[in-house]
Each structure stands twice: as structure tokens, then as C-alpha cells.
């Protein structure tokens, strides 16, 4: 008995701390703590602050929540032309990016799932857009899409598609960023270019988890590539594709840097997206209330989309 107590007392402080931390409740709290703090400080507080701001007449000059104005900010925002265009563009760009990504990521996955010479090099080249800083990428793309010096224009002119007598009119410049639909298309192209590596990696992970025997069985069963792709590979990828869609949709719809860097929402508001308009309103123009209202507008849509997508992903997995 006395030996036992002696050994207890002789344990060092550090040993005691370690043992204390090893208790399930303490350990759980320690592990969980950082995540909770992160969510509270960086997600919950800004989110509820944004809700508060959207209901007030706060500006950058007087950022207080003293004067609540109800839903007036939302009312005013909805009745501006830029809002309708921004909402349309946000949804349109997101939808187009997702469709392009699904097709291209699935195609790229089929390529990268095979063995061939130079596969490593191709993988590295493929991942580069994701590793490149946005601003650097934007400079490159700004040059590509420049109104005067675009190399794309130069190629098209030499192909006889652009310029006098060309298929697409007499002008020898396409003004990619200076026209509404070309501007939107440009944003979509650059967004797809940036997101494709991420989407492909997600899809590739799912693709490589399909047992090889199943694909060989389909080959022996006489199925051609397209049938194997649509009847064997894509059904097996469905849960992964849903995750990829959800992920990229949330990234694209909340993203403003491409529009900010390429077109600044112009010409006029024709390529405006909601996040960029929220930034312009709330920060540049100083109307915090309206900015918050714009930013919050997509929240319910996103929430419903996220919940639906997750439920579908679970259901497919249970099958």
C-alpha cells in the first residue's frame, strides 16, 4: 500500500499532465476544440454579423448595428438592374462551369487512369493551373484575351475566321472581354481551366477505386468504350461526381476574383456576378448593409443545394 502511494507521488508533473490529457473526455475536448474555435470565429461570427449588417443601414463610415431597417436593404438591392444580371450570371456561369468540368474531368480521368509513356509529365502539366497564383494566371489570360494583342485573335485571323472577309465579321479583334457573351464565356473558360485539376483529382480518386476486374468483365462481355463509360464507370462514379459538383459549385458561385481581374463586371454590369457586386457595394461604395444583403442572397440557394447533394451522395452509396 505504502509502496503504491509512494510511486504515485514520485510521478513527474509531465507524466500527470499526459495522463490527464489521455482521459477520453479531456482528449475529445482538446481534439475538437480548435475546430470549434475556428468555426465560431471565422464562420459563425461573420455569418451572424452579415445577417445583422444586412438588416441595418451600416456603412463603412459608421459600421454599427444601431439603426435596424428591416428588409429594406434586400428590397432596394433586388430592384437594381445589376442584381438581376448578377444573379443570372452567377447561376449561368456556375452551371456552365460545372457542365464543362464534368465532361472534361471525366475525359481527363479516363486518360490519366491509363498507363502510357510520359504520363507523369502530363500529370504535372495538368496540375499546374491549380498551383498557379490567381493573379499570375489572370495576367496570362488577360494577355490571351486582350483587345489589341490577343494571340487568339492573331491565330483566328491567320485561319481566315476573323478579320475582313472572315467567317466572324470584318473586325480583326474579337474583344473577348468587351462584349457581354464573350465576356461571360471568357470567365467560364478561365474558371474551368483553374478548377479542372481539382475536379479531375476528385474524379480520378473515384475512378481508380473501381475494381479493374469489373472493367475487364465489361470488355469481355462485349461492351465498347462508350457503353463501359456510361453503364459501368459513370454509375460507379456517381457519388464522387456529386461531391465534385457540389465542391466546384460552391467554389465557383462564391468566387469573384476571375470577374474582378478579367472584366470588372463590365461592360456596364453585363458580366457582373453577385459576390463581386457585393464587394463593390459593400466595400468600394461603403454601403455595408446592401453589400451584406447581396452576399446573403445566395445563401439559402447554396444551403439547399448542399443538403440535397449530400443526401443524394449518401443514398447512392447505400445502394
Amino acid at each position, binding site marked *: 500500500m505504502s509502496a503504491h502511494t509512494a510511486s504515485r507521488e514520485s510521478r513527474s508533473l509531465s507524466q500527470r499532465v499526459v495522463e490527464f490529457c489521455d482521459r477520453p473526455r479531456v482528449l475529445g475536448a482538446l481534439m475538437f476544440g480548435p475546430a470549434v474555435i475556428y468555426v465560431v470565429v471565422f464562420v459563425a461570427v461573420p455569418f451572424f454579423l452579415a445577417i445583422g449588417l444586412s438588416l441595418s443601414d451600416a456603412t463603412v463610415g459608421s459600421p454599427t448595428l444601431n439603426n435596424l431597417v428591416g428588409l429594406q436593404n434586400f428590397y432596394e438591392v433586388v430592384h437594381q438592374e445589376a442584381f438581376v444580371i448578377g444573379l443570372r450570371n452567377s447561376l449561368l456561369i456556375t452551371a456552365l462551369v460545372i457542365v464543362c468540368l464534368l465532361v472534361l474531368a471525366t475525359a481527363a480521368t479516363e486518360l490519366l487512369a491509363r498507363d502510357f509513356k510520359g504520363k507523369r509529365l502530363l500529370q504535372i502539366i495538368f496540375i499546374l493551373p491549380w498551383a498557379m497564383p490567381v493573379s499570375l494566371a489572370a495576367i496570362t489570360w488577360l494577355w490571351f484575351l486582350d483587345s489589341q494583342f490577343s494571340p487568339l485573335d492573331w491565330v483566328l485571323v491567320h485561319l481566315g475566321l476573323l478579320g475582313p472577309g472572315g467567317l466572324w465579321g470584318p473586325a480583326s479583334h474579337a474583344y473577348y472581354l468587351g462584349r457581354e457573351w464573350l465576356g461571360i464565356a471568357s470567365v467560364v473558360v478561365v474558371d474551368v481551366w483553374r478548377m479542372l485539376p481539382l475536379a479531375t483529382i476528385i474524379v480520378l480518386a473515384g475512378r481508380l477505386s473501381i475494381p479493374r476486374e*469489373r472493367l475487364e468483365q465489361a470488355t*469481355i462481355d462485349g461492351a465498347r468504350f462508350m457503353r463501359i463509360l456510361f453503364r459501368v464507370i459513370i454509375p460507379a462514379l456517381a457519388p464522387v461526381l456529386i461531391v465534385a459538383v457540389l465542391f466546384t459549385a460552391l467554389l465557383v458561385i462564391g468566387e469573384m476574383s476571375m470577374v474582378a481581374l478579367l472584366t470588372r463586371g463590365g461592360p456596364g454590369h453585363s458580366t457582373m456576378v453577385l459576390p463581386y457586386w457585393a464587394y463593390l457595394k459593400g466595400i468600394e461604395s461603403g454601403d455595408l448593409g446592401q453589400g451584406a444583403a447581396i452576399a446573403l442572397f445566395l445563401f439559402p440557394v447554396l444551403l439547399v443545394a448542399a443538403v440535397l447533394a449530400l443526401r443524394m451522395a449518401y443514398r447512392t452509396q447505400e445502394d
Partner: protein
Amino acid sequence: MAILQTQSLKKHYGRIHAVDGVDLTTADGEMLAVLGPSGSGKSTLMRMVAGLEEPSSGDILIDGRSVVGIHPRHRNVAMVFQSFALYPHMSVRDNIRFPLVSRKVSRAEQRSKLDWVTGILEIDDLLDRRPTRLSGGQSQKVALARALVRDPELFVFDEPLSSLDAQIRSQARAELRSLHDRTQITTLYVTHDQLEALGLADRVAVIHNGVLHQVGTPRALYQDPADLFVAGFIGDPPMNLLKMGDTVLGARPEDLFREGEISEPAAVTLDVEIDQVEFLGAESLAYGIVRGGLPDAGEQPPRVILRFRQEAEHHFQAGERGRFVVPRSRARFFDRKTEQRVAEPKGVGA
């Protein structure tokens, strides 16, 4: 029905010779097992027959027609994988129909083929289920149905029983054999399990390190192994292989008799010290050390295994010592260098 033939078939992966010159010919409607330990090249051989791998050299003939370079789709070789490889998101019905739909078979024919094959395998009640809701035995039947539905010339089975529970394996084996007897489709059956190979196949081809060692009936393989590898591989426990100078004496555990038990002249008489006895139900195995009786046995006294039935007069105990004979008709001899079977050397049994 068809005859499958491989001619000096080789497959190299870099410097590894997975299949190294295999000549194999099946009879029409035969079930031929390809038996070998893992890494012996049997899977590569099977994949080349199915068309999933191209041979490095040599030829594969089905009914005398070379199929090398022909896409698996056009080979009419059906394969059942070890995992059964059912399509998990399709019903059993769609799984079975998949080869027909892929080949653009008419709907009426699809239906009649489906009826025919579900009748044979008795799986009518499973058609609307998903593969995830099937037991191992049911999955196997569905995989067989999907292979059978296209009327293949040739079946290739990749260890079809090893993913089943031990309890249902013997039943599945019997069903597989009865299916083969009814359909008479030439079948290549690849396995590492000699019980499956010996118990199921008409003939067994033993392959090791990419080389074919012996092709024969299960009985021939067991009684007259062509070389030391087959002798040591077939049989559980394997044949006792005892060094005698330049030759090796092979004797099955059940072919060692107590001296005086039989009248037949003996090839050798061994002085054995038994150190362990295993009770296995109908029979027992005795493990012993040969203390004398072998000329030129080497420095280490060799070990032998003896098998005796429960109704035998004498039950051995550990620690017992006795003299055992191998009758000349049961003794097999191999050359130590070439490892091939040889005739009984002179001086034996004198």
C-alpha cells in the same frame, strides 16, 4: 464447344517471364484445370486466352483459328472472375443481359436466352435483386449465368470457388461440375487449390514459374508425377521425397507399410523414429525421422510422413520406432539433377 490450343505461348514483363513457352491442348468439351502456386503464371495464361493480355510470342488457337490480336469482344470466350465482378448498380436481370445488350441482340432473343439461363441455374427469384443483396453462392450463380447467356465457345474460370465460404464450397463445386456436364462447354479452370483441380477437372495442367510441368488426369498426376515439382506439389501432405545418391525416391504417405504387413518385394526398408502423430478423423498422420535404410541419404536424417487409416491394426505413438517398407510398385524415382521421373535404378530392392 471448341478446342483450345496454345503453342509455345510466352508472356514477358520486362525480364520477368510470366508464361514461358506453354503448349497446351484441351479436348472438345473438356474441363481442364490449370493448377499452380501463386505467381506461377496461370492467371497470365488465362488472361491471354480471354484476350485481356497480348502474348509476347506464340499462338492461341480456338478450333484451329488464331485469336491473337482479336479483341476480347470478338473472341466468344466468357470469363468468370474470382470476385465475380457483378455490376453493382444493375439488377441481376440487367447484369445477365449486359453481354446480350452489348452485342445488340434482339429483345426477343434476350428474353428467351434469359429464361433459358435462369432456368438452368435456378435463379428466377433473384432477377430483381441488386448484387449487393446476394449471398456468395448466389453471386456465383449470377456470374455464371452472365457468362453462359452468350453461348460462349469457351469458359474461363478464375478461382471461382475461392471467394465462397468453406461450407458451401463443396456444394458449389458439385454444381459447377453438373453445369459443365449439361452444357459441355470447353472450360479452362484456373486455381491454386489442388482439391478443386483434382476433384473437378477432367484433366489438370500443373504450371510453375511459367512452365508447364505435367498435363494429365488427376489420378495420373497423383500416382505418376512427371517430375519432382509435381511430386512435391500434388497431394496433401505431399509425397515423401528421399535422397538416395543421384536419385530421389518418392513415396506417398499411404505407401509406407510396416515391415511384414504386405508380401510384395520392397524398394527400400526404412528405419523410422516417429516423433509426432496427428489425428484427422478417418485417418492419422505420423511424422518421423529416417534413422536408417537409405543409402547415401546425406548428412541430415530425412523426415517422412506416414498416413494410416483408423481401422489399421496398429496405432502409432510418438516416440515409437519401427521398420517400414515401400513396395516396388509404389516407389517412384526421380533424377536429382534433371528432376525428371526415371526408371527404378539398379541395386534398389536388392
